[in-house]
């Protein structure tokens, strides 16, 4: 068994001179942070008799709650050629992430207690980041029968999802939502009408037409989203809509929220940077699902993040082995390795004046933690020390060597990034330190 955490566990850590940002406490000030016994022992005030075993000078840097990622694949169990809990949580720690939700499409599927427990144990053993499974909403994700949602929740699942897999009927969906709401389980939707999503497709638009690639129109997302919202209203289930991709979806969510529905939404950070025209050249690293859409959609997503209609930024991390991307475009697997750019590219919104530092921290840490009732995403005194030191002035280039994930599949290779994670603490344990 890997025992990464022990040597540091009882370390007392002092992070000096950083700009500490915790929206939960409405805190934004330069202060020292004291960590002892895995907990935050003080901010700005030295606890009695504190003697640091390790000090970190964070002058000019941000000290923020560790990021909470609602959508990531760690590829275990079942897809060891793409990654493992060990490799992906290590990469998560390097990305400032202390908690991440993994999706149920593992092999075996997360539809039993055993698989859910196994994943959490493996993550605990690796010691880099907490992994919280999202359980399958139907058995085997096959869309026919209810999964044992209550048992899954007991086993640590923070919610349930059908992902982008088909359901037998709207009736099955309705029953899933009713059953989930019985136990106040949150349902993670990835709304998509499968019949409008040809395999290997890209956004249906001029680029798709010109390249002769199959098109996925935005209505593939909006008609499913509209149906899902109606059923959420009917059942009263708590719902979170993940990785929305277009302006019309932002509007649908905004309207539902205005009417008082218990719905939230996230967007994957890469969707704020990619557009459909980038597929020109058949570069399979741009093969993502939902597809990158138009410039107007990209702007609407940014506006949605700004206004708070989209309250969470996620990574949608999907590591792949090189062979999965070394095929003609439509034959390749979709998705990108996202941990490395997660904080820098989301921070770029702050750098560009679109969000304040505090709003940024809300969207990557506080809001997602709140959504799954997780005691994280803040720096409250006495709470587990899950935090990250981020140097907003570091500029660096994303190279394969700097990616700790087993998947090097990202269209952002070679891109200059603004800001870099320097140090990550998971429960007061150093899970990553740059250099």
């Amino acid at each position, binding site marked *: 068994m890997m025992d990464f955490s022990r040597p540091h566990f009882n370390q007392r850590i002092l992070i000096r001179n950083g700009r500490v940002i915790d929206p939960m406490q409405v805190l934004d000030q330069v202060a020292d942070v004291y960590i002892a016994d895995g907990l935050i022992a003080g901010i700005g005030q030295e606890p009695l008799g504190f003697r640091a075993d390790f000090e970190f000078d964070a002058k000019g840097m941000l000290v923020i709650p560790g990021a909470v990622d609602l959508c990531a694949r760690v590829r275990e169990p079942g897809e060891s050629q793409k990654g493992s809990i060990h490799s992906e949580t290590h990469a998560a720690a390097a990305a400032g992430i202390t908690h991440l939700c993994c999706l149920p499409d593992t092999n075996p599927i997360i539809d039993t207690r055993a698989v859910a427990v196994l994943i959490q144990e493996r993550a605990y053993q690796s010691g880099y980041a907490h992994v919280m499974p999202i359980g399958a909403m139907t058995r085997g994700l096959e869309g026919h029968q209810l999964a044992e949602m209550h048992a899954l929740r007991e086993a640590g699942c923070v919610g349930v999802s059908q992902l982008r897999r088909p359901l037998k009927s709207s009736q099955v969906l309705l029953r899933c939502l009713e059953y989930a709401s019985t136990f106040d389980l949150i349902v993670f939707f990835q709304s998509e009408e499968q019949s409008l999503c040809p395999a290997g497709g890209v956004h249906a638009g001029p680029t798709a037409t010109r390249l*002769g690639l199959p098109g996925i129109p935005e209505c593939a997302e909006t008609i499913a989203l509209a149906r899902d919202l109606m059923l959420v209203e009917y059942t009263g289930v708590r719902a979170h809509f993940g990785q929305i991709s277009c302006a019309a979806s932002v509007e649908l969510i905004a309207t539902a929220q205005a009417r008082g529905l218990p719905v939230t939404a996230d967007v994957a950070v890469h969707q704020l940077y990619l557009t459909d025209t980038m597929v020109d050249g*058949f570069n399979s690293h*741009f093969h993502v699902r939902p597809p990158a859409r138009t410039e107007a959609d990209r702007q609407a997503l940014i506006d949605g993040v700004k206004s708070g209609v989209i309250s969470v930024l996620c990574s949608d991390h999907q590591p792949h082995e090189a062979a999965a991307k070394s095929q003609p475009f439509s034959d390749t697997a979709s998705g990108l390795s996202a941990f490395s750019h997660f904080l820098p590219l989301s921070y770029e919104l702050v750098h560009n004046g679109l969000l304040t530092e505090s709003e940024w921290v809300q969207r990557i840490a506080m809001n997602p933690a709140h959504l799954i009732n997780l005691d994280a995403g803040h720096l409250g005194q006495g709470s587990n020390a899950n935090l990250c030191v981020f140097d907003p002035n570091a500029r660096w280039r994303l190279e394969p060597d700097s990616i700790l994930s087993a998947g090097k599949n990202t269209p952002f290779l070679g891109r200059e990034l603004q800001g870099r994670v320097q140090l990550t603490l998971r429960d007061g344990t150093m899970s990553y330190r740059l250099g």
Partner: protein
Amino acid sequence: MTPSTPPHRLQLNPRGRLQHFLTTEGLSTELLTEILDTADSFVSVGKQAVKKVPLLRGKTVVNLFFEASTRTRTTFELAAKRLSADVLNIDISTSATAKGESLMDMLWNLEAMDSDMFVVRHQASGAPHFIAEHVTPTVAVINAGDGRHAHPTQAMLDMYTIRRHKGAFPQLKVAIVGDVLHSRVARSQVHALRGLNVGEVRVIGPKTLIPHDFADLGATLHYDMAQGLKDVDVVIMLRLQRERMESALLPSESEFYRLYGLTQEKLAFAKPDAIVMHPGPINRGVEIESSVADSPRSVILQQVNYGIAVRMAVLSMAMSGQNEMQTVTGEQ
């Protein structure tokens, strides 16, 4: 970010000469005209007693057909042989990729055999582009049709046919009729026609088969044959696959034929001297009336004949573009 090179740039060497032939998109009028002029010089080769020129002597051309084809493969084979190349035909259905070998592994093996040129047909859009990006830079890749993306040699032989019969492009109106959505031929034709400064190019069909984004490529969209064919000089009919009925794109062959099939009656909307083309194989009574296909205005069989000369032109130009770069690299 690292968007890879779009096909129309990847196919040119730093001197702006062809080193692959992946698409007709983005090619200059001069280069397109040069392909046609070069084809002109090869047309007579087929009429000679010895039907060979030595331009590709000592070169190995590999026909890599991942999708069935008779006409395109045989005309490529003939073109390469008339240029004196050694030709290897690989039947993919019985090859190792069918046994699970990856496309990359297969290409590396073929490269190791010192091939000089791959002629590729593949069901996935962008496959020849993928191959051109991944093979050693000295191997020329010729696109013999990829998914819905491009079929540039077919488009060039169509351009050749049009020029032979109609002369200069700027005065011409050309209509492309039928299943434009699935047609790599139509895409390549539109790019080539625009590159050659054609007067007007129209696409005609029902909305299920005419993507509205086709207007961005420089074509005008028509849903009615009477309007679409009015005063055109060239009518290009596309092949209609039977599967289109099953995937709910069309109600029936007979309704399609009634609305968009090229009959003598509908052809009367075009100019009296308009020519009729078809990339083949034709479905008589589905997209074209037999009497039209066999009429003097049909140039369908000439198209096949010109196909060899045009492919000879493209093969020899791409090989010389490759050789040019190898010489340059050798000098450095």
